[in-house]
């Protein structure tokens, strides 16, 4: 039997308005993994072992091995522990978690249940991006359905395992996608990241041991339990297990989410997204969300879509947001917009980021508006050096990396802007 190329979006009929509901999910082998775990009383450490074997890596952006993260949770801890799902999807270019939650919310719930069982956790929160209100409401309904059917609550399916799950919505702050900012936000505070260490596994929500995973990460877990970690790993490639949803946006004919095995050639993904709009030439691509370095089109066309291949090509897979730019794109203007975003969204806690993101934006803006100087290009790199690695969280790095990569790969275009006070394109 050939293996399915899809896990997270498999068997869905988006035209059916009830497709997300519990009964439909059950027809797609939904909650089979949970039932198996509870009826066979599978030991929690066996589950973590299976997830480790699968080489599932965090789908939110950092790519940290999920099984390893789960093993950091203290086992003999007496008090409360928490499980948190990071559905605060706001990385420009990324829109995969929205589709998982609106089309397959129970897959996320089941994944969280299995995680909770494996780590001995009794309560969890799903933090949903504030801008997708209808998806938050759908998650509320799905949680109600799961509770009514005995999948959530006390003594789940008659076992001694209990887990409560609640949805919490954001209200417009990119920084809350950073896990410790998200915890602060859940506690009803400004979303300003915490110092690490201590890591959430020892001091998380309300100061209790906490594990935070991305929506897509949790959603992959039921399949791993049903089919085994080895099968999941084989879908992708070594160290890059499974399938991944890539959100393709920008200058393509069919923007959208495409779930493919990790290691799929970029050229294949581009073809799935309908190819370049108007048959134009691919100029550049940001392969992992706006925070990741841009790569020139010809480099991308030789790259496979997995964590290790993209890192080798000089960028990161990140959240799997693939932003496509054709040869009509002005890279100065593109960078100006991204720099404005980081300036706008810096939480203001660390000086290098708070001040530096403003400097980055203002300098790129003056180049874009014809007031730049040639030495501005080195000044931008110098600023990036003074931000990156000098802040509490990765937002500073996220602001610096695109600047550096844009100047590295498209320096001539920036210089042209300075000299001619207009776009090359």
């Amino acid at each position, binding site marked *: 039997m050939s293996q399915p190329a899809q896990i997270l979006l498999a068997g869905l009929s988006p035209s059916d308005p009830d497709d997300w509901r519990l009964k439909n999910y059950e027809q797609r082998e939904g909650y089979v993994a949970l039932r198996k775990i509870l009826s066979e009383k599978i030991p929690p450490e066996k589950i973590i072992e299976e997830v480790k074997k699968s080489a599932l890596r965090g789908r939110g952006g950092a790519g940290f091995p999920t099984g390893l993260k789960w093993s950091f949770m203290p086992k003999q801890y007496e008090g409360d522990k928490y499980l948190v799902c990071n559905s605060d999807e706001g990385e420009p270019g*990324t829109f995969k978690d*929205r589709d998982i939650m609106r089309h397959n919310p129970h897959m996320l719930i089941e994944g969280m249940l299995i995680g909770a069982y494996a780590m001995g956790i009794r309560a969890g929160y799903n933090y949903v991006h504030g801008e997708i*209100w209808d998806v938050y409401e759908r998650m509320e309904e799905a949680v109600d359905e799961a509770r009514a059917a005995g999948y959530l609550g006390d003594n789940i399916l008659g076992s001694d395992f209990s887990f409560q799950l*609640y949805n*919490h919505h954001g*209200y417009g702050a990119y920084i809350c996608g950073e896990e410790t900012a998200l915890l602060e936000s859940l506690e009803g505070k400004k979303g300003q990241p915490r110092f690490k260490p201590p890591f959430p596994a020892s001091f998380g929500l309300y100061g209790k041991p906490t594990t935070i995973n991305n929506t897509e990460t949790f959603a992959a877990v039921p399949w791993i339990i049903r089919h085994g970690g080895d099968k999941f790993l084989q879908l992708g490639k070594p160290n890059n297990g499974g399938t991944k949803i890539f959100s393709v946006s920008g200058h393509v004919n069919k923007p*959208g989410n495409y779930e493919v095995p990790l290691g799929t050639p970029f050229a294949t993904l581009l073809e799935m997204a309908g190819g370049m709009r108007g048959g134009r030439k691919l100029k550049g691509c940001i392969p992992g969300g706006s925070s990741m370095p841009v790569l020139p089109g010809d480099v991308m066309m030789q790259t496979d879509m997995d964590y290790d291949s993209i890192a080798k090509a000089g960028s990161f897979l990140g959240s799997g947001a693939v932003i496509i*730019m054709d040869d009509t794109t002005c890279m100065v203007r593109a960078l100006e917009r991204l720099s404005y975003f980081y300036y706008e969204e810096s939480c203001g806690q660390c000086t290098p980021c708070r001040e530096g993101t403003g400097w980055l934006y203002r300098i790129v803006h003056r180049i874009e508006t014809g007031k730049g100087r040639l030495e501005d290009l080195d000044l931008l790199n110098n600023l990036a050096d003074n931000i990156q690695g000098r802040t509490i969280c990765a937002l500073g790095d996220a602001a610096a990396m695109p600047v550096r990569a844009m100047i590295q790969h498209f320096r001539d275009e920036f210089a042209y802007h300075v000299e001619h006070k207009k776009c090359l394109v």
Partner: protein
Amino acid sequence: MLSAESLKKIDYELTKYPADQKQSAVMSALAIAQDEKGWLTTETMDFVAEYLDMPSIAVYEVATFYNMYNLQPIGKYKITVCTNLPCALSGANEAVAHFRERLGIGFNETTTDGKFTLKEGECMGACGDAPVLLVNNKRMCSFMSNDKIDQLLEDLSK
């Protein structure tokens, strides 16, 4: 200060958190208050603070940190258009230009009849549907061509 209906909604949100962590409900409480009042006055925020046993300053901090809270009077319909890079590559700036022309206002301005306020938004996590906008924070509209914008404005003007 808030209607019984709003308080009921806040009370439901409070059931999600441990009894000694009422502050966790502040974001939803402020969103509920804003839905009722249109924007958050100091009095409304003070009321929420008292209701959740929080210092007022802690509520102000939250309201000013998250950008979907309205801290000033606002038009009946707040239209927030995402102009971030992926949306800009797929027509967001053209959509904004169309709104400016149709409404005669720029970002952070309200039409003289008090009906529409135009805002620039950051990533809404729906880049594949660009151009994307929100009406009053909660209604997302996708693939907003000029024709669809005209239709939306007509529907909201009724």
